[in-house]
C-alpha cells in the first residue's frame, strides 16, 4: 500500500491486507484531504502564514516518552495527543468538557484534555490509555472493565478508565454510590454504568 492515491479509488475490499481498521480510516481521511487542498490553497495561504508565525515550543512527557513539539497555541491537549502524537485512544466526544471521553492524567490528576491548551503543559507528565498496558499485560482496571463488561460500544471506555484511575487514586471508590458520584464526569450513552461501577470497585479492592 505505498501508493495512497490507489487506495482512494480501490473498489476492492481491504480485509485481505494486514492494515488495521484505524489505518484504513486514517489513510482514507488523508487522501480525501489531499484531493481538496488544491482548491483551498489560494484562499488559506495567507492565514497559514499568520498561524505559522505564532507557533510555540512545548515539551512534556507522554506515557514516559519525552516529546518536544512546535504547536499552534490553539491546539487542545486532546488534539495534540490524537493528531500530532498519533495517540487516538483518547476520544473526542463533545469537545466541550461535558462528556469525559477525553480524560487523561496530567501530573497524576484526571482532567478533560479538550478544555486545556497543550501549550500550557510544559514539563507535565501526561498519561493516556495507550500507556497503561505494560509488557503485554493489561492494567488491572482494564482487566476489570473486560471482566465486568464495563462497556458496549467502547467509545467512552478510555475516558472511563483514565477517570477510574483518578477516582481510585483520590480515594473515592469506597462504595458503589461514591463511585457513581465521583465518576459522574464520564457519560456512557450505551448505559454500561453498572459494569463500569463494578469494574472500578473491583480494581480499587485489588489496588
Amino acid at each position, binding site marked *: 500500500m505505498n501508493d495512497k492515491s490507489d487506495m482512494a479509488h480501490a473498489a476492492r475490499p481491504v480485509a485481505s491486507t494486514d492494515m488495521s481498521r484505524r489505518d484504513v480510516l486514517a489513510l482514507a481521511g488523508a487522501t480525501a484531504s489531499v484531493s481538496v487542498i488544491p482548491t483551498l490553497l489560494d484562499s488559506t495561504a495567507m492565514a497559514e502564514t*499568520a*498561524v505559522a508565525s*505564532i507557533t*510555540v515550543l512545548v515539551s512534556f512527557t507522554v506515557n514516559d516518552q519525552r516529546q518536544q513539539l512546535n504547536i499552534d*497555541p*490553539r491546539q*487542545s491537549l486532546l488534539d495534540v495527543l490524537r493528531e500530532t502524537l498519533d495517540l487516538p485512544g483518547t476520544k473526542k466526544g463533545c*469537545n*466541550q*468538557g461535558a462528556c*469525559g471521553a477525553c*480524560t487523561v492524567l496530567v501530573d497524576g*490528576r*484526571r*482532567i*478533560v484534555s479538550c*478544555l*486545556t*491548551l497543550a*501549550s*500550557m503543559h510544559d514539563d507535565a507528565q501526561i498519561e493516556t490509555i495507550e500507556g497503561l498496558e505494560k509488557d503485554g499485560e493489561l492494567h488491572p482496571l482494564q482487566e476489570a472493565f473486560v471482566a465486568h463488561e464495563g462497556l458496549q460500544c467502547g467509545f467512552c471506555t478510555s475516558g472511563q478508565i483514565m*477517570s477510574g484511575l*483518578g*477516582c481510585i487514586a*483520590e480515594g*473515592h471508590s469506597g462504595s458503589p454510590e461514591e463511585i*457513581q*458520584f*465521583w*465518576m*459522574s*464526569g*464520564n457519560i456512557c450513552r450505551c448505559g454500561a454504568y453498572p459494569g463500569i461501577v463494578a469494574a472500578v470497585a473491583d480494581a480499587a479492592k485489588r489496588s
Partner: protein
Amino acid sequence: MFPFTLEKAGSAEAAIAAAATGARYIAGGTTLIDLMREEVERPERLIDINGLPLGGIRVEGDDLLIGALARMADVAADNNVQRLQPLIAESLIEGASPQLRNMASMGGNMLQRVRCPYFRMLDVGCNKRTPGSGCAAIEGINAGHAILGTSDYCVATHPSDVAVALVALDATMRVHGPQGERSFPVEDLFRIPGDTPHLEHTLLPGELIVELRVPGGPYARNARYLKVRDRASYEFALVSAAAALAIENGVIREARLAVGGVGTRPWRLRACEAALAGKKPDRQAFEEAAELATEGVRPLHHNAFKVVLLPRTIVRALELAGEVA
C-alpha cells in the same frame, strides 16, 4: 478558534501590566477555552497566570484564606476548609465534575460566564454577547433562567455554586491592579444585568483576583449547601441554597442564607436572615422566612416552577443546617 498569542506571566506585576493593555488572564481555562472555540470569546492575547504563587490555602485566626489559583478540588479536599468552612467544601463538590474541579481555579470560578444556551449561539440575539442584539431567552426556552435580578435585557443565572456559599458567608476578595491592591465583599463583584448585561463584574481593567477570605463566625460550622437539579450530580442548579445557623439555647442567634440557580448573581437573602433571628429553629420559622425569598420575582414562561421550588429548597437547607447546628 481565532488566533491569539499566549505568554506566561513571570510575575503578578507583569501579568497585571499586560492585562491592563487588553490581554486576558487564563488559569484553568475551562470556561474561556470552551467559549473561544465557540468564538463567543475572541481574545488576541492570553496571559497564563498558572506560574504565579497564588494557590495556597491558609488559616489566619478564625479566617480561611484561599489563593485565587487554588483548584476547586484541592480547596474541597483541604482539611482546614472542611474543618472551618464545611459549606465551602460542600458547595465545591456539588459543582462541575471531578475532572473540571481538578482544572478550574477559584478566581476563574468567580468570573465564569453564564450557561444560557443563547449566549453561545452566534446566530441569535444576546445582549451579553453583542450589546443591543436582544435577548433570545426571554421568549425562548427559559426553564433554567433566573427569576430574581433579571431585566428586559438579560435573564441568565450566575452558574457558580461556591460563589453562593461565599456570598452567604460574607467572604471578601483581595485584588491587585494597576492602581494597587484593594479588598471588597465577594457579593460586590457581581453586577445585576440592568441594561448593560455585557458588564458582569466590578473589576477594573487589569485587576487580578489574588485571594478569597472567608471570615469565621458562630454559624460557620453549622452550614449546609443543598442543590436541586435535573440529575443527581454534574448538573447546574435549578435552585440551590447555602444556609448557616448559629443556635444558642434553642434559639437562632444568627442566620446566613444565599441562593443559586434563581438569580442573575449569587443571591443573598438578608430579609430571610433577619426573620430567622430570635426564632426557634423549627419548620414554621423556616417556612415563614422562606416565603420572603420570592419577593419581587419575575418568572418567565418556563421557569415559574422556581417560584415554588425556591422556598421549599430554602426550608430543606435550613433544616439540614439545623441538624448540624
